[in-house]
């Protein structure tokens, strides 16, 4: 009999799955598709920079310090106000100089050395920073760190928040009381203080930033997931699952979780956006990424002192990258929410 079965199974029409349906609905959303394309482009950029195909030489000082963007043209030579150098030949001091006997030796040594005078460019596509590094390369390299930090930290925070929220909402009673207590303590402490506390314990580095943000950012997710689980745990489909003998874990994660996934998804996307901004603050305060790496945050931190001198391009580049990515990501998450929400199904 079992030999016959696969055939009948293949013949029976299967409705498209949740994810297939969601994708079909998502495809009809023009705004969602455009933002998905932008996010995908960013991901490609990150992959390229991580494999050192682009922005490999972001630390090279290729331009003059604070080189302006190409479209502004080179800066006019400034009147430095120094005394004009004498034009005639150098005065011969050799008869009074006690070091004169060693002139020849030095000349020989100097002949062995070779200094390559780098031709520093007057302008760069997006301008240059204080050291003359290309702002565009920095922004691309910074994308890698910032997005990595934002996404990873939000995944961590969402996981913590979802697990705790599910436990509190599903079991209620003591567990709920305890977790609510933890939540209240966490939210009572100002965020920045909490971050300082964690930073002091963990030391510096990108991993630390991810950990800090993840450990401080879960409270919002926790609260919302808890509310959703409280709502769903007494729904009849969960009761029905209990009646057929499904375990607590199966009811929590097989039955309820897929039905609240859209809420979690939106929360997570908001966290990505928020954490990218938080990384900026951390880096600005000197707790973020190390000096030998660059992120949008460190660029913005540098931009502050440059801005006073009128060098706005580093700020503009970092802001532009951040704004485009964050907006696209939010819109994409919003479109995903719409596509995944089972309640919005009516209009099919």
């Amino acid at each position, binding site marked *: *009999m*079992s030999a016959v*079965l*696969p055939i*009948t*199974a293949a013949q*029976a*029409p*299967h*409705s498209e*799955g*949740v994810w297939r349906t969601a994708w079909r*609905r998502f495809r*009809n*959303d*023009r705004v969602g598709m455009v933002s998905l394309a932008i996010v995908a482009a960013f991901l490609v950029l990150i992959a390229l920079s991580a494999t050192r195909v682009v922005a490999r030489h972001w630390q090279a000082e290729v331009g003059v310090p604070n080189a302006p963007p190409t479209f502004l043209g080179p800066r006019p030579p400034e009147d430095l106000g120094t005394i004009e150098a004498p034009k005639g030949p150098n005065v011969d001091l050799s008869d009074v100089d006690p070091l004169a006997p060693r002139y020849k030796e030095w000349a020989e040594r100097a002949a062995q050395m070779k200094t390559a005078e780098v031709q520093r460019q007057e302008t760069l596509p997006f301008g240059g920073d204080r050291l003359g590094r290309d702002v565009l390369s920095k922004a691309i390299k910074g994308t890698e760190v910032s997005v990595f930090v934002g996404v990873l930290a939000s995944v961590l925070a969402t996981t913590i928040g979802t697990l705790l929220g599910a436990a509190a909402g599903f079991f209620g009673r003591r567990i709920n009381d305890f977790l609510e207590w933890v939540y209240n303590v966490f939210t009572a402490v100002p965020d920045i203080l909490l971050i300082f506390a964690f930073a002091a314990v963990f030391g510096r580095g990108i991993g630390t930033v991810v950990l800090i943000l993840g450990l401080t950012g879960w409270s919002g997710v926790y609260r919302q997931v808890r509310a959703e689980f409280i709502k769903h745990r007494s*729904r*009849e*489909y969960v*009761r*029905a*699952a*209990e*009646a*057929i*003998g*499904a*375990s607590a874990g*199966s009811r929590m994660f097989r*039955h309820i979780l*897929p*039905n609240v996934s859209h809420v979690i998804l939106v929360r997570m996307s908001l966290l990505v956006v928020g954490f990218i901004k938080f990384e900026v603050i951390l880096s600005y305060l000197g707790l973020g990424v190390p000096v030998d790496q660059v992120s949008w945050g460190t660029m913005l931190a540098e931009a502050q002192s440059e801005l006073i001198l009128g060098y706005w391009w580093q700020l503009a580049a970092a802001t532009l990258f951040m704004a485009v990515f964050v907006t696209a990501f939010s819109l994409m998450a919003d479109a995903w929410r719409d596509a995944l929400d*089972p309640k919005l*199904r009516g*209009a*099919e």
Partner: protein
Amino acid sequence: MLLSIRDLKVSFRLGERGAVTLVPAVSGVSFDIPEHTTVALVGESGSGKSVTAMSILNLLPDNAQRSGVIEYQGRDLLQAALPELQALRGKEIACVFQDPMTSLNPVFTVGAQMTEPLQRHLNLGRRAALDRVEALLNEVGIPEPKRRLASYPHELSGGQQQRVMIAMALACDPKLLIADEPTTALDVTIQRQILELIARLQERHRMSVLFISHDLGLVGEIADHVVVMRQGVVREQAPVARIFQSPHDAYTKALLACRPSLGYTGARLPVIDDHIEGKVPNRQAKPKDPNAPVVLQVRSLAKSFFLREGLFGKREFKAVRDVNFQLRRGHTLGVVGESGSGKTTMGLTLLRLHEPTAGEVLFDGQNLLTLSDSARQAMRRRIQIVFQNPYASLNPRFTIGQTLNEPMAIHGIGTTQAEREQRARSLLAKVGLDDSAFGKYPHEFSGGQRQRIAIARCLTLEPEVLVLDEAVSALDVSVQAQVLNLLKDLQDDLGLAYVFISHDLAVVRFLSDEVLVMKDGEVVEQADAHQILVAPKQEYTRRLLGAIPRGYQPT
């Protein structure tokens, strides 16, 4: 003629972002509402009766397109501008909706909500409006109306809330009252009271009522004129006596036939499609074996909830008290009562979905309530439950196949995936669904089909006892008949024992052998189903029986 509808067509624009499709809901409906009469609009869900009524005042969502003529006192309401309609809404034409719990705003007191339309439409001052509201509440039969002005909606019972809604609708002396299934969410006894109230008010205020319902029996008691709708068209319209005495349309005849009535003694109910095709239910009832083994015995079962009171105090609320019964294989125990009588709590406690406070549930001689967890898991297989709301009891993220497979996987029924799938498919066939249902999601099915799936899910575990918690209450009359027939078939074929919980005595009568009548958590009467019908001992049972709609009774 107060209102006349001519060739009304309503369709809804559906589809997302560009791809627009027009779905017709009402296609060409015409009827009149004369002054000082009650017109009833009857049909199953999806027949377009509510859409028709709501298009009178344009209370439809934005994506509705209407065409035709709705003439109200010489004006065409379809062409009327919004301010003109707003002047009519509540003042000349008022509405009462199905669910009073969601129709009242929970954060305002009854008084505050009711004075608003008075101040708006009649330009009354606050004092005068409050006086008028008090008079209105008195008129709709709310005790202590003055005190109720300061109550919030949640402090009132469902029936009282509906009375408040009716009082609100009456506030400006409307000429037409649209009542959209005003009693569907209420108990039978309350339904009767509300029905009498509407009839009395209609008489006193000399207004017209457009009464919308899916229940022809109910309508027969109140309407002067009946319009039967199906799939967006009017199938028949006539005075109420003619509809009941000599219906012309096959569908009307079927509707009249498929409702279980107290006097009906056949083994199966006629269903609409069969009736239209002229088939007669011919399956004979299998005689019940009075000496069948007892599968379920319940002794002095009790369940209390503890409500917090004050800072540390607790108050005991006895939801179920001292329930005793025994259920034999292949038999059905009916449990009737109004909402709040503890019948659902009792059902859930049987399965230990609620922990009981006291008592014993003996299943094959073993006490279900003291079993260890592993032994309980095995017992769970043998007693299963079907819930009231078919839309909520299936996980929307699972295909039907997954839904049916899960219980078998948990309990290790069937060794391979293929074997389980085979079983699931045969069960789908057994509950009357075709094979294509296997891969579909719950939202692709109607309410009756979902209830069949829920029944199939229970059957995967080969239970011996099935608790049916208002399992057909949310379904239309015609679909109800199909599901009831299915339950009877399954009982005859598989020897299942049912605990059938319902507020509808007629349905309970059709299915049950023995009936428990519950009130406030206690069993007030317990007797053979036939006996309870002919010779009810308790006043409460008599009241329940008297409240059942009996259709049109020529006087």
